[in-house]
């Protein structure tokens, strides 16, 4: 039996390259949601994918490729028996390693004038992603993660 037959390939839903802008990110998230609607993924899983993609892609636009609106982001989304797999690639700055292990929520037990307006993104990513793999390869960031069906 061939390896391909033993491990059926994931069902690819989207493969795209788009400019590193907020509006392009918004458009891609909408596209992914339309594709996910046609799968058997639960609505809760579809929502989680959209939320996670928003954070990952915005992070690339704002930090990795900061201001380089001519640069492109590659995105692949696929479905396998266990959930949804997402991979992004960009040629921006390397991801700071401390972001990969875990993230803390910003301190909110503070006076209202000092309430944090940022710092939530990586916490959301870690809360929703089951497996996250990051590879920095010859100037390219490759980040992949899987989201499983949430418990009912």
């Amino acid at each position, binding site marked *: 039996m061939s390896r391909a037959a033993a491990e059926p390939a994931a069902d690819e839903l989207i493969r795209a390259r788009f400019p590193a802008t907020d509006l392009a990110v918004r458009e891609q998230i909408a596209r992914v949601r339309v594709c996910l609607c046609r799968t058997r993924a639960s609505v809760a899983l579809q929502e989680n994918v959209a939320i996670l993609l*928003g954070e990952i892609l*915005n992070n690339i*636009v704002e930090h990795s490729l900061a201001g380089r609106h001519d640069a492109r982001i590659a995105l692949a989304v696929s479905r396998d028996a266990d959930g949804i797999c997402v991979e992004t690639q960009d040629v921006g700055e390397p991801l700071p390693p401390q972001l990969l292990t875990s993230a803390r929520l910003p301190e909110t037990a503070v006076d*209202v004038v000092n*309430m944090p307006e940022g710092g939530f993104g990586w916490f*959301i990513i870690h*809360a929703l992603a089951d497996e996250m793999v990051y590879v920095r390869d010859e100037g390219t960031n490759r980040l992949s993660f899987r989201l499983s069906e949430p418990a009912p």
Partner: protein
Amino acid sequence: MDIDSELRGNVRLLTLREARIDAAGSMAFKEKVRTLIEDHEGPVVIDMDRVEFLDSSGLGALVAVMKMLGRNRSLELACCGPVVGKVLTLTRMDRIFVLHNDVEAAVSARDAA
């Protein structure tokens, strides 16, 4: 950023007409809300019913609005949908903002207060 604004008693009710508060729109949201509430001293309720998507930039914009309200008023959000609710719960901001299931109940509770 399309937001309806009306005065109900002493409550300023803002109704979002947008499907998302995301990185592309969070700045416009913040600035629009600022102009709509700057001369208002009473409670503010935001009807989130149309909002299908919120990311951490949008969440940051909501925190910015909460700061505009100062120490004596809370940020009151009505009718948060599933994605908005999930983002608020995950980040535990559901404990910081005041959430209401119903716009009319939120307004009358605040107007009476």
